[in-house]
């Protein structure tokens, strides 16, 4: 319980900091943000109206407090382009991003676990070097390169899958592969390292000594224990996944929050940019906090307060 409270307190500080940083983003716009958003040909009256609507004519402290107050009521303001409440736009876009992120995560786990376990079990063999070579390659191929390459092979040449858009399950395959591969590359290294550590433990030797087959030893005894550190790291890697989603969604015209943020940047719709960055970051913080608690829950040593 103590642990829970201190953790929640530090999360609160982080959330507050993120809110403040995002608030100040709009003040980094070179020159006059209102002029940049409306263009040079805008009428003076329109500029004043927008300045007032955004509260930019108020003192900075008032603006800041106002922003914090609005955000706690889930009010992110209004999009300059569509004049619709941003909260509504975010809610429309969020499912697509969630779907893509989960599918990418699934791809990563499905590739990484067998690869990492195999590399660890056959350490220093050709299998191990091969798997780690593939993983090194996976890290070096960014989403914005892998995406077009997959489109080229599976959509253009083979014609198996749609090039872009979000219609049906088939259209999810390529974006999910694009997003999941980079994470699989990193994850497989973690699984390998974690497995190697576990395989040296006494209880593995005991399990082998009592005559368990290699399969049971690896999957039932080793992997289960190797899983815990991997789960924590998985939570942290989710950040890379979310940032990758921004690029992947752009590559595949996937109508999620990532595409929204790029559209908003191009259209200088800064309130939307702020809201998207805030939304993605806070989801990331939320997931990581939950992973932390899950970790504490699954590990009785942490749960019962014996400390790590």
């Amino acid at each position: 319980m103590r642990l829970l409270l201190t953790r929640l307190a530090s999360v609160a500080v982080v959330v507050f900091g993120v809110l403040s940083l995002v608030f100040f983003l709009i003040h980094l716009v070179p020159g006059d943000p209102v002029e940049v958003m409306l263009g040079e040909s805008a009428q003076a009256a329109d500029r004043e109206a927008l300045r007032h609507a955004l509260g930019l004519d108020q003192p900075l402290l008032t603006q800041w407090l106002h922003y914090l107050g609005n955000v706690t009521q889930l009010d992110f303001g209004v999009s300059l382009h569509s004049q619709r409440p941003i909260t509504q736009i975010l809610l429309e876009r969020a499912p697509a991003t969630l779907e893509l992120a989960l599918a990418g995560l699934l791809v990563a786990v499905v590739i990484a676990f067998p690869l990492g376990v195999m590399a660890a079990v056959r350490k220093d063999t050709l299998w191990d070097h091969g798997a780690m070579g593939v993983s090194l390659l996976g890290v070096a191929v960014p989403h914005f390169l892998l995406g077009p390459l997959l489109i080229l092979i599976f959509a253009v040449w083979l014609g198996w899958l749609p090039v872009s858009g979000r219609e049906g399950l088939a259209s999810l395959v390529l974006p999910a592969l694009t997003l999941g591969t980079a994470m699989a590359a990193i994850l497989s290294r973690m699984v390998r390292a974690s497995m190697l550590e576990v395989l040296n433990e006494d209880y593995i030797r005991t399990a082998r000594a009592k005559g368990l087959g290699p399969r049971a030893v690896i999957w039932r005894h080793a992997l289960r224990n190797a899983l815990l550190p991997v789960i924590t790291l998985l939570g942290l890697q989710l950040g890379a996944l979310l940032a990758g989603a921004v690029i992947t969604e752009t590559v595949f015209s996937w109508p999620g929050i990532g595409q929204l943020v790029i559209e908003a940047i191009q259209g200088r719709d800064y309130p939307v940019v702020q809201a998207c960055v805030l939304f993605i970051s806070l989801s990331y913080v939320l997931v990581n906090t939950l992973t932390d608690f899950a970790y504490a829950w699954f590990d009785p040593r942490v749960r019962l307060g014996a400390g790590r």
Partner: protein
Amino acid sequence: MSLPRPARILGLWLPLTVVFVWGLFALLGLWLPLDPNRIELPHILLPPGEDAWLGYDDLGRSLAARVAAGAQTSFVVALWVVMISCAIGTVVGTFSGYVGGGWDHATVRVIDIFLAFPGILLAIALAGILGPGIENVVMALSVVGWVGFARLARAQVLSLKHREHVQAAIALGAGTTRIVFRHLLPLMAAPLIVEASFGVAGVVIAEAGLSFLGLGVQPPEPSWGSMIRDGARYLLMAPHMVMVPGAALMLVVLSVNLLGDRLRDRLDVRRT
């Protein structure tokens, strides 16, 4: 530990050559007769071949010249970002770890806040808001980049400052400056250098990513990222427009990472 022969060629000499060529293009780019923006209309979308080197893009510009000029962009950005991030991060982290107390507490909180922005999202937002241009890319990526170095430097100082040689220096009355520069920084250099080498690979990808999103250098200035973006529109007709800059990017990132691995083994640093 020395690797067997073939592995040594693959893991050391090949990446060294790639990085050397990359740096060479970046440094000599100013004097080479490259002309990455010269348009030759008859060559539009020409694939690589006998008299086309690496082929031509949709505007009839030589991809060979553009990849070489793009090398300069990525090299300059990577060098600046890593230098700035490493300098700021080391100063902040060392100070925070050495002074401790409330300062340290505050710094850790600030680091946590920056880490709450996943990956390069903050850099995307910053670059988008500051507008395109190489200086803004460097600034946006440095804002994100210093955090890793600060964390590492702080952790290093925390583990080093209770070592006996530091305690002895304090007992002998050495000043803070002397302790930091003579007794801490030399021992922190190895892990920071290793981190910096992986940082270079990360920045190369990040710069290309920003340029891919249209938030990097201004066209017609070439960047591997914007070349990939332009090429993605001509996948069917001219896949080489994606392949050529993509291969360059992959080779450089792979090589820098391999060299980072070697450096880490050489300097005996455990990756955290």
